[in-house]
């Protein structure tokens, strides 16, 4: 059937940051399909210029409120790599615990508050609280747990204040860790309840697939479903690339549709995020996380971007189960006081971790006084922009017959499923500093 559709969604709602969708189709022929990112650029690469290696994390944490722990960790690792600073095993473990708290916080927020209303056919979580009160209460409890977990380890929920090059300014006590562990154990019931609620409406996830490349971290030694250590891998590539060579993976290019750079590796686009991590590392998930994946029929090789939200649910279970075990290890060894001193030095290096929404790269260069002379940051959401555009191009003709409202809703749902952090993504165009 011939259809004429004109969609211009200015600022997609229920995403972090601003993005626009433009679709023009006349008599069933698609003339224009565009994903645009017009956010006011914030120039973080310039803002860190001249600042001390000790202040970098405090600045770049403000790239994004939702991924603040991730940005802090990536930048701190880059600083440590650049200045040759070592981190103790216990500090490393506590940082991973801190990182997991953000994965849980961000995933629960995304699945529970931002995606669930779509699946239940509602405009926001407020009416959802009336329609599915038990599920919403479970979401709220999990979200609070994740935030209080960050509060404990990072010093606050958003923008950590316990991280410093070389380690942490403060460690949790054994008693605090035991209490956290108890709460994590008790949260499993809520995780199961939320999974069941999402499963009951999972039929509303559009059935759309597009073969593409999925990129994430991968860690062999010891084999881990990693968010923090390891090398870069992809579903198109059997080996692993060192995180220090990330520019050869991201291959950034400028696109007129956005203030952010786009990326590609083996194909015209690639995807990062929970589904990418799942596609690369699923056999390493915790037992209960594997059960949840099975419940939803999620298997490795899935190319339906809408399933990213399901992969996030799976990861929520994984980080909780894994953290319970990590706290046991920390308690058995006991946390010893440490007082790491660092001194400035010239150097240049990268740091890489998985943000909730995908792999994140930071690179810095410092002069002899330890002041920053160059920065290059590549954000997961930017790495997904080309994939969103390619998805639009394939998806729109498939659903054009459903009419303007349905096309608009499904495209918004598609954007949301990537969990974009546009506030994060636009600060990140990068070039070496002009000196």
């Amino acid at each position: 059937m011939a259809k004429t559709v004109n969609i211009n969604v200015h600022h997609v709602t229920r995403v972090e940051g601003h993005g626009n969708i433009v679709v023009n189709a006349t008599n069933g022929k698609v003339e224009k399909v565009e994903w645009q990112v017009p956010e006011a650029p914030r120039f973080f690469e310039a803002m860190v210029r001249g600042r001390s290696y000790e202040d970098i994390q405090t600045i770049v944490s403000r790239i994004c409120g939702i991924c603040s722990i991730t940005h802090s960790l990536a930048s701190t690792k880059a600083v440590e790599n650049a200045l040759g600073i070592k981190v103790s095993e216990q500090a490393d473990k506590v940082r991973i615990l801190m990182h997991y708290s953000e994965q849980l916080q961000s995933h629960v927020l995304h699945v529970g508050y931002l995606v669930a209303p779509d699946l239940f056919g509602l405009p926001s979580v407020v009416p959802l609280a009336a329609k599915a009160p038990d599920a919403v209460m479970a979401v709220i409890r999990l979200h609070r747990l994740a935030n209080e977990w960050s509060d404990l380890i990072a010093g606050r929920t958003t923008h950590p204040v316990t991280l410093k090059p070389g380690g942490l300014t403060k460690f949790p006590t054994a008693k605090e860790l035991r209490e956290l562990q108890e709460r994590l154990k008790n949260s499993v019931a809520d995780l199961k309840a939320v999974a069941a609620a999402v499963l009951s409406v999972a039929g509303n996830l559009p059935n759309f697939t597009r073969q593409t490349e999925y990129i994430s971290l991968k860690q062999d030694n010891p084999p881990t479903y990693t968010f923090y250590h390891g090398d870069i891998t992809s579903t198109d590539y059997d080996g692993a690339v060192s995180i220090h060579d990330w520019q050869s993976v991201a291959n950034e290019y400028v696109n007129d549709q956005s203030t952010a750079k786009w990326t590609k590796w083996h194909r015209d686009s690639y995807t990062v995020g929970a589904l990418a991590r799942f596609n690369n590392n699923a056999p390493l998930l915790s037992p209960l996380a594997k059960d949840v994946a099975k419940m939803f029929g999620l298997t490795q090789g899935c190319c339906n971007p809408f399933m990213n939200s399901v992969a996030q649910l799976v990861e929520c279970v994984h980080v909780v189960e894994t953290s319970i075990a990590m706290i046991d290890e920390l308690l058995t060894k006991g946390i010893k006081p440490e007082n790491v001193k660092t001194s400035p030095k010239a150097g240049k290096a990268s740091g890489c971790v998985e943000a909730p929404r995908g792999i994140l790269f930071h690179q810095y260069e410092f002069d002899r006084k330890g002041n920053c002379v160059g920065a290059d940051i590549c954000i997961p959401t930017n790495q997904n922009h080309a994939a969103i555009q390619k998805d639009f191009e394939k998806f729109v003709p498939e659903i054009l017959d459903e009419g303007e409202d349905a096309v608009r809703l499904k495209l918004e749902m598609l954007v949301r499923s990537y969990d974009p952090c546009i506030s994060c993504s636009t600060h990140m165009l990068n070039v070496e500093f002009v000196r």
Partner: protein
Amino acid sequence: MSKPKIAIFDFACCEGCQLQFVNLEEELLDLIGVADVVEWREAMSEKSQEYDIAIIEGSITRLEDEERLKLIRSRAKVLIALGACATIGGVNKLKNNFNDLDEVKKCVYGKDSKKPHLATQPTKAVDEVVDVDFYVHGCPIDRKEFTYIVRCLLLGKTPEIPDYPVCVECKAKGNPCLWQYGQVCLGPIIRAGCGARCPSNGFRCFGCRGYTSNPNVDAAKEVIDKFGLTVDHLKTKMVLFGSRQEPTIYG
């Protein structure tokens, strides 16, 4: 009285302050019960043109944003600046350390820096563009302080926000002073209200709540005397959150 209509708007920022609303958890639903949130792009699909209270998050960095902010101000009875980006410009003010903004653009965007969608101007706090009725300090805001301010507002009371230095709260908690370990802590000149959050975690105060107008109290004086500091010298260290900021300290 009908429920006041609240609208939330974001400008250049990390949206971490809005995130604190979500972090209110159930309390957010209570708040929504007494007020009517008519626009909040990050969490809702609904949009509106009418509101009593406008909450502004973020700094102003483009001319088009100044116009948008003025329009919001003209529609709102009460305007609240939310978080350091809005109250003092926050980290965004670091950009103003460069005399030439073309240089900033070039160092971020290289040869593409001339593209029109990259237009930028020096960062302004909200009150450099329009009148602000209430300030919610911090980066991010403290969610308890936020609900306190909103409750006062709904009850027609004036909220009482601390105007003494962070050192007061820090000393009350019995923390060792970080200057002892050579850390440059801005506690003596910065407005309290965060419970000395950073020094209590072993991290220097970097000034996210902005200057206090009254650094002249015992706890701060003690630190200043003991470590041979001056208010003026400390102000030169207020770089991360107060670059190019007019001094706001009186007396």
